[in-house]
């Protein structure tokens, strides 16, 4: 396979992917008997009326991977930020090696040997990837001058360790979410920290990168580091971690060895009730062709992509990270222009590059990057949720708060958005709850064609089931659903058909009956033949 993937921008990076490996299970053979190197005691933190953490405790030992799980909004990220010195707790103490410390700024935490990968990437778009990794602790030459060459070579070493051929000289702007996440990981590794905290590092990654990451984490663990790992994917949690702490509603619920727990038990503790089955796909009979895409080409990004989605169908678009799935979705929705091809909804051709027209024709897109593309972080939950319907909610061109509030209430109840007040800015919501607001925003438009790009990224099990149920329900009502997902079980569980993209081309179209992990992954890595 030649590595000539089409690229979009001058700063785009081209790289291929290694072979897919299965998760290597197994945990390092350390026995916990040493005192914890990090201990949190009775940490409490509130934001205005929201009690994000109350009396949370946590112990991290050298050489262990400790998983932290909980529903969206349980307080995991808040705990991480407290550890990172980005938030100061209202009460409680942090002990490092048994001594009480005050982490009053991120610099303090770094100095104490704590490296953090935040849930949302925190890169400097204008700076090069290498500079991003070493910002504030670049290798120095004489007279405290930065050694740019050392910077570069060390970045390359780090990427080799992670198995990603990212170019250290390219600017961070324009990196895909996955690549951003990888840079974040490299940044944390570069710290050589004793304590590594990772807040959903895998949410944007596909299997290959996840496996690479895990092998790195295991080697760190063997070298004696303590790792705190947060994820909503239980296979990862159980394959990587030795102990699992469950949080609910800002409180500590339990900490147990992973061996002593089952997925069901963890979910029960997280949610406080039994969760219905995931992927409740009901069979529907496909109706007329709703969305037809023909020969869609955007030079350097994707070429000659054509497919149809029928009413009542859920079609999954699978592929490796960077295969160009999101780009296709954006072009179809009119956010990006395309160079050739045609998009038809219910037989009518859409003007290219016109989002408003696409929406008017009944298209909806739940984008992959909720912070940049999905939400206006400074605006309230209510405004965000009704932004797509502002014309419909207006009377004689006038729009008053009441109509928006009512509409927003309905949908936030339906999706169980956890917020103190609909007037709060969405930036105050937890990641998962933010995702729900994006869903609310688009589902409320009664779309005829719904495109969802990684709809359940960062969403907890309970809500995930709810989202899946919603998608099925919508399909049942005759909506054509195009679902982009990097999670194979989700793809296989939900889709009537699976389209697979590889390097900007649609390589195969597999019906539900024949779709399995093997066939999809082979096609995604460019090794599968025609169906």
């Amino acid at each position, binding site marked *: 396979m030649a590595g000539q993937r089409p690229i979009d921008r001058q*700063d785009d990076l081209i790289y291929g992917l290694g072979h897919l490996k299965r998760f290597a299970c197994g945990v390092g053979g350390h026995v916990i008997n040493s005192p914890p190197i990090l201990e949190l005691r009775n940490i409490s933190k509130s934001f205005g009326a929201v009690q994000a953490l109350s009396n949370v405790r946590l112990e991290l030992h050298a050489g262990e991977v400790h998983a932290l799980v909980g529903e969206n909004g349980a307080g995991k990220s808040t705990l991480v930020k407290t550890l990172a010195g980005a938030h100061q707790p209202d009460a409680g103490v942090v002990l490092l090696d048994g001594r009480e410390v005050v982490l009053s700024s991120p610099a303090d935490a770094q100095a104490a040997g704590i490296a953090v990968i935040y849930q949302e990437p925190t*890169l400097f778009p204008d700076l090069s990837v290498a500079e991003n990794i070493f910002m504030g602790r670049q290798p120095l030459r004489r007279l405290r001058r930065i050694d740019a060459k050392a910077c570069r070579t060390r970045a390359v070493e780090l990427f080799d360790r992670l198995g990603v051929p990212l170019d250290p000289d390219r600017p961070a702007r324009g990196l895909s979410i996955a690549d951003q996440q990888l840079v974040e990981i490299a940044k944390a590794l570069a710290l050589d920290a004793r304590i590594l905290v990772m807040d959903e590092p895998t949410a944007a990654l596909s299997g290959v990168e996840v496996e690479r990451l895990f092998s790195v984490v295991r080697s760190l663990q063997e070298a004696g580091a303590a790792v705190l790992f947060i994820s909503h994917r239980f296979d990862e949690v159980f394959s990587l971690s030795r102990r699992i702490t469950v949080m609910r509603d800002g409180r500590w619920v339990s900490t147990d060895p992973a061996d002593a727990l089952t997925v069901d038990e963890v979910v029960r503790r997280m949610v406080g009730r039994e969760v219905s089955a995931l992927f409740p796909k009901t069979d529907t009979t496909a109706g007329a062709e709703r969305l037809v895409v023909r020969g869609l080409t955007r030079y350097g990004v994707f070429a000659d992509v054509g497919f149809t989605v029928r009413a009542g169908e859920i079609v999954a678009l699978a592929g490796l990270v960077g295969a160009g799935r999101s780009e296709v979705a954006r072009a179809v929705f009119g956010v990006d222009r395309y160079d050739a091809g045609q998009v038809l909804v219910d037989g009518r051709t859409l003007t290219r590059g016109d989002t408003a027209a696409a929406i008017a024709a009944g298209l909806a897109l739940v984008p992959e990057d909720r912070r940049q593309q999905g939400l206006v972080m400074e605006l309230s939950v209510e405004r965000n949720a009704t932004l797509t319907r502002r014309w419909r909610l207006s009377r004689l061109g006038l729009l008053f708060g009441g109509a928006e509030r009512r509409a927003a209430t309905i949908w936030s109840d339906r999706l169980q958005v956890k917020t103190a007040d609909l007037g709060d800015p969405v930036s105050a919501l937890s990641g998962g709850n933010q995702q729900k607001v994006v869903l609310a925003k688009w589902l409320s438009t009664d779309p005829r064609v719904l495109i969802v790009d990684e709809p359940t990224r960062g969403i907890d099990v309970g809500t995930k089931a709810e989202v899946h149920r919603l998608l099925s329900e919508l399909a049942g009502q005759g909506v054509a659903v195009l679902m982009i997902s990097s999670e194979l079980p989700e793809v296989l569980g939900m889709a009537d058909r699976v389209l697979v993209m590889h390097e900007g081309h649609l390589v195969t179209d597999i019906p539900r009956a024949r779709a399995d992990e093997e066939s999809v992954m082979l096609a995604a890595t460019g090794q599968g033949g025609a169906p």
Partner: protein
Amino acid sequence: MQTQPPSQRGASDSSRLVHRFFLFRELGIALALALLIVVTTIVNPRFLTPQGIKDLLLGSTILAVLAVGQTIVVVTRNVDLSVGSVLGLSAFATGSLFMANPNLPIPVALLVGVLLGAVCGVVNGGLIAAARVPALVVTLGTLYVFRGVDYTWATGRQINAADMPPGFLHMGNATVAGVPVLTLFAIVVIVVAGYYLRTFRSGRELYAIGSSPAAARLSGIPVGRRVFAAFVVSGALAGLAGVLYAARFGTLDANAGSGFELNVVAAVVIGGVAIFGGSGSVYGAALGAVLLTTIGSALPVLGVSPFWQRAAVGALILAAIGLDRALAVRLTRTLRHSTRTEGP
């Protein structure tokens, strides 16, 4: 893994192009500048006599020094609109100082001017960093306040060339190997600032702050301290510019440097410094300052009617930023199309 080597090469090819583009960006301004000078000289050879060159260099010096300070602030996603007022204050202070002590050594005057500017910078930076408020508003406020202080202090007085020591005024006019002494100050400032921003951690951190303030905070960069320092430096450079102004113009009243702020911002923007922070260099900004002053002095020489001059300056500013943009877009497109031909 056979895919890796070729793709990685491709990647660094593209990034090299990116680098070349950024180099080109400053080259583009330099080119525009050269073009302007050549055309003007063809029309009027006197434009490039030693006297003409000296005038050009002297003319750009003060704006260039201010542009360096402004760049340091702008890369942190802030802006300092008060520089014109700080310059005025420092220039008047220098004059008053010399009136009171005609025998004062010049370095002392320089030091006092720079210190006074730095104090103004402390006011700006202190308010902005401590209260975390938008720089544009604060410095628009201090633009008024510093100017008001200057007015109140001067109360219609004027300091004339005759009031200042000849040695000081001589410095404003003297040349070393054809290069005015004042310009040497500017060159030193540009080189030091440029080198610092590129090769020291704290310099890079300024870019990081401008690129993403929130991320900078989470990375443990002392954002407040750095922004504060950037404003102090900008103030100090404006103070230095004030002393240079006094040396060059000799006549000082409270209006010195009023309205400069827009010129400085224009110079920085023309020089390719992103107004929203994170990228750009002091070399570009200084070139922008030279280009802007050259436009100002070339137009009268070209015989453009005084009524058309202002319009021409505006049109050239638009042309400069438009051209810069067009180059960037074109480069992107070329890259995209070139990959198409070899792509699948």
